[in-house]
């Protein structure tokens, strides 16, 4: 067992687990798109970022790939983390607005606008399907190909693969291809229809502002650093 600080609480965690698993064990919900129990962590979606270390010198790291260690100080929903997550959700909305999972996440995190060029992709390159095929199905039928903006998930030579048994595991885990509910604003890029529901009906994934502020170091948030100096 190792002892770490999770959102200001001293907790005991089994050695070898990741921060994400430890947080889930203590009931702290960290949003993810590319994590699935039973598949190797991948760190692709970056939504599980948490702040690690003492305030002031804290760094942001993906909790799904970071193992717990003695004396680790973790803040899972600090202002800095929430800001990063909202930005990521906005980017996911800009590329993949047809996904229910991403739309729900946007509502839960109060992301109400998209400032990026709207695209309509059907893949966020989270790699869940690739890992599902390789690790659970022992199929190795699909994989990543090409590079950079051309990168995509496909079978070799874009042809029907002999290795594929049509098990459907890849579709089952895909966070991008579960289509969104047809709410009153279904034609818009950001739905946010769930924001009109009473707060208790919402699946609130994150702490409210009071909790976020309580986790801030005394004296307010650390001074914002930019790459242009102070």
């Amino acid at each position, binding site marked *: 067992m190792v002892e770490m600080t999770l959102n200001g609480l001293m907790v005991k965690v089994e050695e070898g687990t990741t921060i994400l698993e430890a947080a889930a064990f203590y009931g702290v919900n960290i949003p993810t798109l590319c994590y699935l129990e039973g598949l190797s962590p991948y760190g692709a979606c970056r939504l599980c970022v948490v702040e690690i270390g003492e305030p002031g010198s804290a760094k942001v790291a993906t909790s799904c790939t970071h193992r717990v260690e003695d004396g680790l100080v973790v803040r899972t929903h600090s202002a800095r983390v929430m800001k990063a997550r909202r930005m990521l959700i906005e980017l996911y909305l800009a590329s993949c607005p047809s996904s229910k999972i991403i739309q729900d996440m946007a509502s839960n995190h109060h992301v109400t606008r998209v400032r990026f060029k709207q695209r309509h992709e059907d893949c966020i390159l989270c790699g869940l399907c*690739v890992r599902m095929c*390789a690790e659970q199905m022992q199929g*190795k*039928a*699909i*994989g*990543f*190909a*090409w*590079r950079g903006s051309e990168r995509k998930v496909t*079978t*070799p*030579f874009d042809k029907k*693969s002999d*290795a594929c048994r049509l098990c459907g595991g890849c579709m089952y885990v895909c966070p991008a291809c579960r289509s969104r509910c047809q709410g009153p604003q279904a034609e818009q890029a950001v739905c946010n229809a769930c924001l009109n529901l009473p707060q208790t009906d919402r699946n609130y994934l994150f702490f409210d502002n009071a909790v976020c502020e309580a986790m801030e170091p005394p004296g307010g948030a650390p001074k914002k650093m930019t790459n242009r100096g102070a």
Partner: protein
Amino acid sequence: MCKRPLEVEDVLTRVIVANGASVVTALQEIQNNYGYLPEEVLRAFSRKTGIPMVDIFNTATFYNAFSLEPRGRHQITVCVGTTCHIRGAGMLIEAVSRLLEIQPGEVTPDREFSLETVNCLGCCAFAPVMVLDGKYYGNLTAGKAREIVGRIREEAAEGAPEADEGESGGSREGVC
């Protein structure tokens, strides 16, 4: 550069004996032999080594140096890295493009030349740089590039008929 290719089995045996199961070096060997990565050879390589086809395809498509399409007999690569760009790589490309009437990424209809760009060759001191059949030409101007390519083309036009008349005449398609 374009030798008569070995049989698939011979290539694979050589590749596997020399490199074990290292995908990148094996793909380099295959590409050196065929001028590109033919699908059947990659599939045979996968069967023989047990490396999943997705992993091979992933590697083959990731690196710019590998091509899944047949390339020209003479390979022209123009560097468009930062230094070469500043020192006029664009003009080299334009000159070569006009001379051969192909765009970067294309092959001439007679399969003699293919033109590609690369992001840096690591010899910025010679910028702008062009590589023709593995030979580096540095400090180029549009005129010099045109001259070099033109010379190779003339040589090819003179030398090609005898070389092609022989045994490889029929098998040239899809080979180089």
